[in-house]
């Protein structure tokens, strides 16, 4: 239960950062925060009360492990998040080279 609200809070904080912050790097951080929120949401959807990690070994039977599918999805989403962040940061480097600023309201040759 707590985890649903925590993930909701993380997503909300991320969107807030995107809306209010002017610094491009902070906006990218906001994207990462949203990503973490979504990951937490997926994980908590897969959680089953009182059960353990889905690795079958002596002492862990299939009847007491959690849902492995959302965890697999999270693994994929983490990698996608890393990729987007890396690319976005390198684009920001290029933006900075041209505009000498990271303020998104000053980076406006084109109209929004």
């Amino acid at each position, binding site marked *: 239960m707590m985890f649903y609200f925590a993930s909701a809070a993380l997503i909300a904080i991320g*969107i807030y950062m995107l809306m209010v912050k002017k610094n491009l790097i902070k906006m990218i951080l906001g994207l990462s925060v949203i990503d973490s929120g979504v990951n937490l949401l997926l994980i908590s959807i897969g959680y089953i009360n009182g059960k353990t990690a889905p690795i079958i070994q002596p002492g862990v039977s299939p009847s007491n492990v959690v849902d492995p599918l959302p965890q697999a999805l999270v693994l*994929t989403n983490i990698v*996608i998040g890393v990729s987007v962040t890396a690319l976005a940061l390198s684009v920001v480097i290029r933006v900075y080279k041209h505009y000498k600023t990271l303020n998104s309201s000053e980076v406006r040759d084109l109209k929004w």
Partner: protein
Amino acid sequence: MIKRLVSIIILAVVITSLFMVLSETAPFGDDETVVSHRYIYKGVDETGSANLVTAVVLNYRGFDTLGEVTVLFVAATGVGAALYTRKHPVRKNKVEASLIVKTGSKLLFPMMLLFGAYIFVHGHLTPGGGFQGGAVIATAFVFKYISDTRYSIDHVGFTKMESASGMIFAGLGIMGLLLGGYFLLNILPNGTPGELISAGILPIIYIAIGIKVGAELTGIIDRMMGVEA
């Protein structure tokens, strides 16, 4: 200021109400779903992997993982294209690291490589896998970059490794199609679950992914180190 406050309130209201609905309809800590039931109860027999997440990631939904590897590959290529310079990038930071960092990195570098390799080789048995192991390996190279201002990776060798491991993954998929009629079919025997050599092609894929991810993340860092802002 008021604009900020309003946006906070709207966001908070919308998102909490969404998740109120969610916690009613899909109560937290509820039982597993039909699809996962099969993964949990039959996964070990069907894939030979003791780690069920690995079974799902690499076997049941292996195609997603091929896509995921591709996403990282696209991003690494994109970083390379965005930060392209005519010559090979020359590193700019000239501040020497302290003696502690230098000695420590020499000591830790081989161990970090070994630990990364351990994580991806045991991906089908213990928590972790190719992506995690690759990230650890890339961290080892970051350490190298921090401690030595002249250090630079062997670009040609890294490119070759990266390509070869990517081709192994895609090639295994095509091989499954040719031999068994299904893309990414597990063409090797499952073996005994819980042993190092088991789970068919899963360990091979994870080793390939580990090398690929390690090389790609290191390449991204190398690119970013080389640019002048």
